[in-house]
């Protein structure tokens, strides 16, 4: 797949804080080049601007300065080529599972000739029994599976994942992580994942960008050459985890607040 090339050049984002009568630098000179079909993660503590960066790529926010390109075109507003999955509560509560998944197909006028796709996606995530249930009748894990395939239904070139598994328990999270790898290997679209779960980033991505807050900057980029599926207790896995934790100041005893 050749589509789904994301280029971010020297992006700056300043937020207005009307209540404090001040402004805040959220992203400072951030640059990224994500190849089509690549799986990358952005990790960092909360407040480092990683969600803002993802929202700029989605077209939900505009950068104060700098350029964001998708396949060479400047990103200007949302586009069904760039799908988005939020952490939670983004399913349409008034639609059934089936109708949620069909939403994008209807919006992009493909539903009439892709009806079977909806059923295929439902069974892909094992929710056949719940096809006609409403979101509040599903568990958190099921809801996120639906959100995931809803975004995939219209085959976006880029899938933006904003801590999609952040609200789930760790067992459900591992199961869906496996599913994510499978989905990505089948489709080979570009995946950009935001997470504060270091293991999740290592388990899933080919490249990891580490960000620090105030102002948000990318301080390190790691390339992972391990094959999929990955083993969480592998020595290479553990080494990379140590590197990332050290970079985020979590792995040494010299830090005053956190001892691991």
């Amino acid at each position, binding site marked *: 797949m050749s589509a789904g090339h994301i280029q971010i050049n020297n992006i700056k984002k300043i937020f207005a804080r009307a209540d404090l009568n001040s402004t805040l630098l959220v992203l400072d000179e951030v640059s990224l080049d994500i190849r089509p079909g690549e799986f990358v993660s952005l990790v960092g503590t909360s407040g480092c601007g990683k969600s803002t960066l993802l929202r700029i790529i*989605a*077209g*939900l926010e505009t950068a104060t300065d700098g350029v964001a390109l998708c396949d060479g075109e400047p990103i200007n*507003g*949302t*586009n*069904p080529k*760039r*799908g*988005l999955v*939020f952490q939670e*509560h*983004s399913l*349409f*509560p*008034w*639609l*059934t599972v089936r109708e949620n998944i069909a*939403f*994008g197909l209807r*919006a*992009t006028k493909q539903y009439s000739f892709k009806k079977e796709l909806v059923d295929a996606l439902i069974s892909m995530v094992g929710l056949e029994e719940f096809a006609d249930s*409403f*979101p*509040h009748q599903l568990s958190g894990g099921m809801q996120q599976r639906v*959100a995931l395939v*809803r*975004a995939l239904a*219209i085959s976006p070139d880029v899938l*933006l994942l904003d801590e999609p598994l952040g609200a789930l328990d760790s067992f459900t999270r591992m199961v869906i992580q496996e599913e994510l790898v499978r989905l990505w290997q089948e489709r080979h679209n570009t995946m950009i994942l935001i997470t504060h779960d270091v293991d999740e980033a290592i388990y899933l991505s080919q490249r990891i960008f580490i960000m620090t807050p105030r102002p948000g900057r990318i301080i390190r980029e790691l390339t992972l050459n391990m094959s999929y599926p990955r083993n969480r207790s592998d020595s290479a896995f553990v080494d990379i985890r140590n590197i990332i934790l050290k970079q985020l100041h979590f792995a040494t005893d010299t830090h005053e607040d956190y001892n691991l």
Partner: protein
Amino acid sequence: MTSGANPLPTLWELKEMESKPKTRMARLFDRIICALPILAAALELLQYKLRPNFRNFTTTDAYTVFVSFFAVLILGLFVASFFSKRAFEKLRAQSPLYTVVFLLFAAYDHATLKTGLLPLPYFPWPDRILNAIIDDRVLLLDCIGNSLQLLFLGYIFGAAAGLLTGVSAGWSRSIRYWVMPLIRILGPIPSTTWLPIILIVAASLFGGSVFLIALGVWYPVTMTSMNGVQNIRKANFEVARTLGASNARLVFRVAVPSAMPYIFQGLTQGMSVACTALMVAEMMGVESGLGWYINWQRGWAEFAKMYAAIIVICLTFTVVNMALTLIRKRVLRWQEGGAGV
């Protein structure tokens, strides 16, 4: 307890298994409670048939049939309660209420027909009111038809206008800029205030009354739908946009359905405002309908017929509101806990 091969218990069986076993005394007590409404009805029937009436007050069999009808219904349920757990639970829960209702009938009958404590013509006894409904049924049905026609015309226009202004004002800042002052000024004025002006200005009284009712419905529906659209979860919107939704789709497939719980609050409030406005309009101007009927019968000092009309109004509005509740449950079945309540 049971082996794994046995099927799971049904909901009723489970409830039984989990509830504390009742003593013989408690079970007997339950049966007595279940029988009480029938006893109360029998008491009232005995009083009605056997006790001499006050002065020369006359009665018919209409009331006997009326009370017997409900007594027989309950008797049927009582018999069924020995065979069906569900019928028993239902009767056990409702019978204290039924009993009190029959006793209230008996007390009122005692105070009017049997002793004259509450004097005529202001307090006709139940049998007289019942006969008033039966005698005037053709006119009353006609009045119900006229009232409902006026009510629904006004309600539908008002709700449609309210949805239009509310949703568009919730959606667009510039529309809100113009709609808000209008709402601020018109909102606090009860719509019936405009009646004297409408009586003068309106080309037809019927049209004017439709407008009056519509105005009353418009306000709550506008307010709630505007609120509903403004309170949509941001994530729903953003996801819809990334899924390629056009602006029209965002309004009609995201904003409006997501605002439905709010909109139904407005529709319910609007219905009670509409009923009030309907009565005022019919009593003050329109020469048809149940409100007019009451006023007209008052002119003839026909108090039984006034009470009859009030009962008919009560039944009519109850049915209308039940219909609205059913529609709401159907539309909002996606809400958490919405299905059961």
